[in-house]
């Protein structure tokens, strides 16, 4: 039996290597002092992080990524929480099917979604800019927010709310003083998951931004021309932001799939 269980440990270890090695290498080579992303690394240095900070495109790209991420988080949190509150009042089956419908954009190849959105915006005479990117991201992030917040509201003890109403609170006041404080961590966590999705997105952004770069489109350009470990530095930054906001988001929402 001991031999058996060792096999499972071995297989699990191989999976961890397969899953994590690529990302670990990206991070490791961000700290090389050489110009190539391979071994040996003579010594760890911040050379490529300095190069990143000095790159003229870096600050504006970071600013755009943060602007989009912030807008996405705010709007999808508000809209998504409202929708989740609406769904929580419906019979469970109706709510589940509505949720499935709202998740449909995730079932489309991102490329197809991106080019159809871009075609739509341009045909409406809209300028492609940060607004069009933000709107497109919200379409993708709102199902996550609704799903996570709905999961909590569904198990919410409605009697607390009813007693607030019995004591004379208006629906809005009852929501603000009873429901919101209870679900606030979940909403914040869901918003952080939305940030992670938005900050990492390349395909939708690439087609709907018009001009200017976000961090992912910036490194896309770099990967296709001269590759230096600066790509790793920016990539590590993107990874750090998405992983930290995912971790915070998952722990705040206590959502486990």
């Amino acid at each position, binding site marked *: 039996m001991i031999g058996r269980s060792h096999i499972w440990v071995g297989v*699990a270890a191989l999976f961890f290597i397969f899953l994590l090695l690529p990302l670990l*290498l990206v991070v490791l080579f961000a700290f090389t002092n050489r110009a190539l992303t*391979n071994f040996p690394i003579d010594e760890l240095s911040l050379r490529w992080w300095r190069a990143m900070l000095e790159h003229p495109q870096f600050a504006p790209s970071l600013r755009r990524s943060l602007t989009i991420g912030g807008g996405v988080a705010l709007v999808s949190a508000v*809209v998504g929480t409202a929708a989740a509150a609406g769904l929580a*009042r419906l019979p469970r089956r109706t709510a589940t099917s509505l949720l499935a419908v709202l998740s*449909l954009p995730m079932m489309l190849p991102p490329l197809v979604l991106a080019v*159809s959105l871009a075609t739509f915006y341009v045909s409406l005479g809209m300028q492609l800019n940060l607004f069009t990117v933000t709107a497109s991201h919200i379409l993708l992030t709102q199902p996550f927010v609704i799903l996570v917040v709905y999961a909590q509201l569904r198990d919410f003890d409605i009697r607390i709310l009813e007693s607030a109403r019995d004591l004379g609170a208006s629906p809005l006041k009852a929501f603000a003083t009873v429901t919101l404080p209870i679900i606030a961590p979940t909403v914040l966590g869901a918003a952080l998951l939305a940030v992670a999705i938005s900050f990492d997105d390349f395909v939708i952004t690439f087609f709907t931004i018009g001009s200017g770069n976000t961090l992912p489109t910036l490194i896309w350009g770099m*990967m296709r021309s001269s590759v230096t470990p600066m790509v790793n530095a920016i990539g590590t930054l993107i990874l750090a932001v998405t992983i930290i906001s995912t971790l915070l988001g998952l722990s705040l929402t206590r959502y486990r799939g």
Partner: protein
Amino acid sequence: MSTAYRSALLVAPSLLIFSGLFIAPTLYFLLVSFWRFESYELIREFNLGNYGEVARDYVALGIYTLFIATIVSLSAVTLGFIYAYIARFKAGRFGSIMLFVALISLFGGYLMKVYAWRTILGTEGIINNALLGLGIVSEPVTWLLYNPPSVVLTLTNFLFPFAMLPIAASMRGIHDSELESARDLGAPFTAILFDHVIPRCKTGITTGFALCFLIACGDWVTPVLVGGRMTMLGNLIAAQFGEFLNWPLGAAMSFSLLATAFLVVLTFSQVMRVFDWR
């Protein structure tokens, strides 16, 4: 205010975003696929020319794309099943950590994961580093990267959590006692696997396959970064909105791809029904 009315009001903004940014653009895109582009102008006349062009020039590429996407999705589902199985039945408390790691990797690092494989497989990459260092080869091995297998490997790596998480979710419903009693009654491992575990995970397996397939068949980043001269249909779709600037053809390619992709997913879910009677 009635409950139904209030619910509708609360869900309305979400539905508005959904219809305005998903239904409307998709329907419009479908219309565009029947129009044509002439000297940078969209001619709004119904014609089937774009689909004719797809049928004439791009069938082989389309089949190739679906073929690659099928291999990728089957690999991701198989690996995902094994991983989910270990996490659920073999890893004990460590299982939830295994799932958590995969869940985190779902939300980030798309470009970086693809790019990392260049670092691993390239002529200057770490595999060649190791092979040269150990004296196994004297020249860097060039066939590791910039070919279809490296695209399959990279996409499988990226799509793994999309396949694994739905399967893990459906495994949560299986109780240890069910498998234990089967084992006590003398059922061999394969019988438990095929008669019990897989049929119970059918929904998860099908969902995982569908997610992987729909993302893989439309991918164009991976072939560009690690595929060398390899082209998938996604590369040509992307090009219709860039250098070639032919939206109607791009739209027709997109809908042809979608239609055939849904057929493949449907076929897969039908094939999974062989586990029904057990």
